[in-house]
């Protein structure tokens, strides 16, 4: 990323941070929180799914560990709330290393399948272990911010997205980032060039899991009350993956575009279709796979490059 573009990006994030000075309605701030939060989650997923080319359909596992980590370390063990938050993120990294070790030994669809299986084990266990998690009845999440919560949650979501964006931008232009993209393009060739594919994939999954768990903790505290289906369900996993794919997997700004589009569309569809609002996810996935395999940003960038080369 050039210096100029970095400055533009920084200016955009500062502008986003100033939004609460203008918007003061809780509902609007909550919608903005959701959009920015999922932009950050999409960026986190993009590291694994976009740059490393490993399709994770179980990011809800890390999201849920972040959410339940905050709640349980704080409520059950009585730890200070910010320490509990950090421990939730650490737990998610541990989980990522565990599942990565199993899943990355295999290629093809196995990784996607194992991530789903792992997330489902966590979800059903959280439902069943009612004495710890409250099960389907749910559990109350501690409040991270005492005053002006809507404003602060929105600001922290912007900061998470800025963090994920910066991490991605730094990784993409680093040696590590080139390893990831080499693995995505051809794992055998990458290994023949001396890249330790297993540990590279494991490390990027850990980074992605940490960012996702931060999002999970914020979400839990903002929502105030969580149940397993909501924070560890397949829906969350799908939502995160679709956002990145729609915007453009393997592009820096794709997840931002995807989050704005998908979350706005979901918000609109919720009032029209209520129960079946997930229909839009399915339609979008099919359309993207068939017509926009590089996502919106990826396709626009390709057309742009071609025009530039032509002129």
């Amino acid at each position, binding site marked *: 990323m050039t210096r100029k573009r970095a400055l533009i990006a920084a200016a955009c994030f500062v502008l986003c941070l100033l939004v609460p000075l203008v918007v003061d309605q809780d509902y609007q701030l909550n919608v903005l929180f959701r959009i920015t939060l999922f932009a950050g989650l999409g960026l986190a997923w993009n590291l694994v799914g976009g740059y490393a080319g490993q399709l994770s359909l179980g990011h809800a596992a890390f999201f849920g560990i972040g959410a339940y980590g905050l709640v349980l370390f704080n409520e059950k063990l009585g730890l200070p709330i910010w320490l509990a938050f950090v421990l939730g993120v650490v737990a998610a990294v541990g989980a990522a290393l565990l599942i990565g070790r199993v899943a990355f030994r295999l290629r093809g669809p196995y990784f996607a399948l194992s991530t789903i299986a792992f997330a489902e084990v966590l979800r059903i266990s959280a439902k*069943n272990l009612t004495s710890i998690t409250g099960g389907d009845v749910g559990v109350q999440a501690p409040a991270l911010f005492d005053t002006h919560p809507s404003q602060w949650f929105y600001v922290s979501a912007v900061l998470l997205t800025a963090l994920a964006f910066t991490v991605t931008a730094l990784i993409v232009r680093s040696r590590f980032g080139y390893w990831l993209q080499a693995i995505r393009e051809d794992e055998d060739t990458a290994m023949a060039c001396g890249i330790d594919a297993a540990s590279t994939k494991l490390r990027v999954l850990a980074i992605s899991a940490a960012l996702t768990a931060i999002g999970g903790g914020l979400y839990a505290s903002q929502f105030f009350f969580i149940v397993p289906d909501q924070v560890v369900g397949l829906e969350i996993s*799908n939502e995160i993956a679709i956002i990145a794919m729609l915007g453009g997997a393997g592009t820096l700004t794709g997840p931002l575009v995807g989050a704005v589009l998908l979350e706005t569309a979901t918000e609109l569809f919720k009032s029209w279709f209520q*129960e*079946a609002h997930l229909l839009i996810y399915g*339609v979008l996935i099919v359309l993207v796979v068939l017509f926009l395999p590089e996502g919106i940003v990826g396709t626009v960038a390709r057309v742009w490059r071609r025009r530039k080369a032509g002129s």
Partner: protein
Amino acid sequence: MEVKLWQAVQAILNGILTGALYSLIGMGMALIFGVMRIVNFAHGAFMMLGMYATWMLFERLHVNPYFGFLAAAAMLFVLGYATYQGLLRRIADRSDFMQILLTLGISLILTNGVQLIFGADYHQINFGLLDINVRLNSHVSLNLPWLLAFGITLVLGVGMFLVVMKSRLGRALRAIAQNRYAASLMGIDVMRIQALSFGMGLAAVGVAGGLLLPVFYLYPGAGDQFTLKAFVIVVLGGMGSIGGAAIAGVVLGIIENLTSLYWGNEWALVVDFIVFLLVLSLRPSGLFGSQRV
């Protein structure tokens, strides 16, 4: 002591009966994966369509589900053929990343489309046959609908196995599974055979859906857990091995019923996935070797 032993026997017998249906679902998935290299994330959603078709026939036309399942299978065969020709064919040469996403999208459309049309309510059908139990002794009895489903599944499962192993179509299927390019050089119309095998794989879940209807709840998400179970079965049996999937289905049924007996029904799916993750980490080629289709 003796009672406990009979409980275990009962659980194992129930496991075999449930497992036969799992086998059929898994065989459909294995056929599709073997021939097309596509992991069908819409497997359970198509099964749910089969259940709704059988249910509509029962509610509107009073067709007994034990005949209705044939119509569901026929419908799903056509739907599978059309889905392949209309959607899957267009991305045949893309990465499995894209293929997984496409079938996931189809699954979401089917589940939520059905929810939009029929609502999210649970349905259960009722007719005289359902309460009949066959007593083997004072501790062990078998439920007639499950026995019927088992018998039908056994016949169709063996039939499917024979088609794949003995018929001309089956030989073409296996040729494509081994090497798609070489098969096309031998004069096999790969696209047509793949469309047929996707149709056959879905017909298998159509049968399973129809047979499950009398003993299961019907709602738009009814198939979701079966997609996940089908993954477990296919991995357990060795990706793409139809015979392996048949055995793995029964194994999974027994594991689930024993889990239910000793730990409670709510842990059955957790144990499924733990078995799955263990197999992947210890013996990725599956429990029953690595032969394909």
